């Protein structure tokens, strides 16, 4: 896989492949381990890697690899879903603000400013305090938190493009607004928007990990990367993989996706 990855010429393909890899890992990963992520056995806690437990065990003596694969599933899927939400809603509103009447921009703009002024963690705490910590609530919360940012980016991009002559010419021709948005504006803002998606994804991974670390994200018996780190804090003293590996995975996931999307958008 890694060899193939390096050989790919186009940076664009590389980004697509990397995203596909993480989604596949999220979907199929838990099937790769024979251990039950929730099973507390007779094993010692915080044991090192062995043939039976490739990444050792956690603070309850559960298999770290099985829990890690499960944690990746939650983190990746939740964050992809919320990023998808925030970026599509944000882009839609951003373009709408530029192409519709003036009051649309005034209303959406002020709303976005209002949301941006609320600290994201505080907002998440508030929503979760009211609605509880279901998966759906988490996705929506994170989605809403990052929508204003995506909105601002897309509005700024669309504003610049909408002023260019080829859009003017299309309007002079009498093209419909949907055509102008889909054919003239969107393709030309795709590059920077993709880079923005990468950024939003990282933010949501970090926010979810934060929430889980505080104990209000993904709830046991389910697990995500952030809650794994919190559970196994004690293992730090033993150098246990149960604490270190999820941290490394968070870093690799966020930095990798961001680099891949950044370079693919720059090459357009």
């Amino acid at each position, binding site marked *: 896989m890694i060899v193939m990855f390096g050989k790919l010429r186009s940076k664009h393909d590389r980004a697509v492949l990397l995203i596909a890899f993480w989604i596949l890992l999220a979907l199929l990963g838990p099937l790769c381990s024979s251990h039950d992520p929730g099973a507390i056995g007779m094993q010692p806690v915080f044991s090192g890697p062995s043939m039976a437990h490739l990444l050792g065990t956690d603070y309850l003596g559960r298999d770290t690899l099985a829990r890690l694969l499960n944690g990746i599933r939650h983190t990746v899927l939740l964050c992809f879903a919320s990023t998808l939400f925030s970026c599509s809603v944000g882009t839609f509103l951003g373009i709408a603000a530029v192409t519709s009447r003036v009051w649309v921009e005034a209303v959406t703009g002020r709303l976005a400013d209002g949301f941006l002024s609320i600290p994201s963690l505080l907002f998440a705490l508030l929503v979760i305090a009211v609605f509880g910590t279901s998966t759906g609530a988490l996705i929506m919360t994170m989605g809403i938190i990052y929508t204003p940012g995506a909105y601002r980016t897309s509005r700024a991009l669309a504003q610049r493009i909408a002023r260019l*002559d*080829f859009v*003017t*010419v299309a*309007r*002079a*021709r*009498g093209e419909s607004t949907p055509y102008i948005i889909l054919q*003239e504006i969107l*393709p030309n803002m795709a590059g920077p928007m993709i880079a923005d998606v990468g950024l939003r994804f990282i933010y949501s991974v970090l926010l979810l990990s934060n929430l889980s670390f505080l104990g209000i994200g993904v709830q046991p018996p389910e697990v995500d990367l952030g809650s794994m780190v919190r559970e196994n804090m004690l293992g730090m003293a033993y150098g246990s993989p149960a604490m270190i590996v999820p941290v490394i995975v968070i870093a690799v996931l966020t930095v990798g996706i961001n680099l891949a999307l950044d370079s693919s958008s720059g090459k357009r």
Partner: protein
Amino acid sequence: MAATIQVENLEIVGRRGKGEELPIVRNVSFSVQRGEMLALIGESGSGKTTVALSLLGHIRSGCRIAGGTIRVAGYDVTALTPHERRSMRGRVISYVAQNAGSAFNPALSIMRQVVEPALVHRILPRRELEARAVSLFRVLALPEPETIGERYPGELSGGQLQRLMAAMALMTDPEVVIFDEPTTALDVTTQIEVLAVFKEVFAERGITGVYVTHDLSVVSQIADHAVVLKDGAIRETGTVSKILFQPEDPYSQALLAAAEPRSRQTDLAKRPAQPALLDVRKLVVGYGQATSAGLPEKVIVNHVSFSVPKGGMLGVIGESGCGKSTLARAISGLQPWAAGELFLNGASLAGSVRERTPEQRRHLQLVAQNADSVLNPSKPIGKTLERVVRFYSGLKGEAATRRVNELLDMVRLSPALASRLPSELSGGQKQRINFARALAADPQIVLCDEITAALDTVVAAAILDLMKELQRDLGLSFIFITHDLHALQSICDRVAVLYAGQAVEVGPASTLGKGVHHPYTRLLHDSVPLMEPGWLEATQRRRLAEATPVTTLNPLSPDPELCCFLARCSDRVGGLCDRVPPPVLSVSQGSSVLCHLPASIRPEFLS
């Protein structure tokens, strides 16, 4: 005596990204004697700016000097350490950039910026430098030299900023000054003033100069020697009179041929009068709230009327900011107007493009100024054209492709280009595609907004030829908006002269320069540099002779109804022009002129 500037076998190479090194400048050698002015002539991409900047020891990042020597005033520029280079720049050699508007920091006052280079080199204490700056302002004929330094760049005009930039370059009393297209961004009426001042100052101070330009008429006025560059190599060197009047190299000859004011007029202009295709009546366009009189707060286009006959070509000329582009936007329905009417084929046109019928939209096409931004960068040009064809004629598949190829052929481009993206085309090719896009609609009238402004002379000449061909072959009408009087005269039948939003004169293009005209039209016509040695001095002398008469203007509240050219007019009559709004007068050659036409310019021609 050794030359002040001596460049020998200069080679500069550069690379794009990780590609191979490509030569940018090839084996360039020239020398400039003390007190002389050398012109570097060439089209964009010929390496003229690269050569000029290398004299300062500056090479753009990614490029390097691969060979040759540069000696400026005794310094071996290529061998200097960064520290020595710093001390040489500004003190021995200085630079005047093309766009003074963006070269000044808008947040600092003029004086702080003008004395800065001299201050950096610790030539004199600040107070003495400021005194020197004021004397330079006076020499450069800037208004209010004592206090202009306290102002900010945004408060001054382009021509003033360009002269201030020259003042900045002269502060340290350098031996050599490099000018990089210093008047290209200026209006002709301003350009002549700046050129005249520059020339006087050079002669007075014995400055050795290098003047980078593509404008041959400017070269003929200001330089002693010239070097013609193409693709980084020298094609011809010699005295200006030799290069301009007996060029030997085929490329120099082509450059000259393109710059030569040449008529493309055909007999077409002499056919019987055609009915008006587009009729503009008392159009008013502006911004802001409507005032009590029903006019907008800020009027950009002020009661403009003209008409374009079928198959006719109307030129609209004026300086930047006179409302040319706003007029084009209003006619094409992108900018609503406040008052007036517009008729196409006798039918009234709505102010907004959405309210016009598809037929009306098809018949009136806009070719916008900037070829770089007019094509969607993410679509192959074939797709762009196909969309227009499909939009207006409903052709699909095979038929649409055939039509696209036909259009490409019409603008003299190969059908193979259809699969290219706009970024893979040259400026001239893009402008042709821009044309093809308008033609795809099968229009009756095409509005061309400054379409040749960003192109090199040779390419622009080809575009003008193309326009004339299209007019002849397809019977198209054109409105050609420009600030280039030569281009206008070479193709247009009629001309509308715009000043401060008003059409001060509308008449036949062929009579420009003779007969009775609005004072602004005459000023404009006289300001276009000719390729005659001594033209600059002669014109300046004539201007001085007919200097503005000393009349006290009615100073209180200039009435918007009064003549817009009043403050600059050399023929104004006190008590008439500053009190009574100008009437529209018809003169013998068939023009209508918005002026009282005082006795000094009118005499007996008034019909």
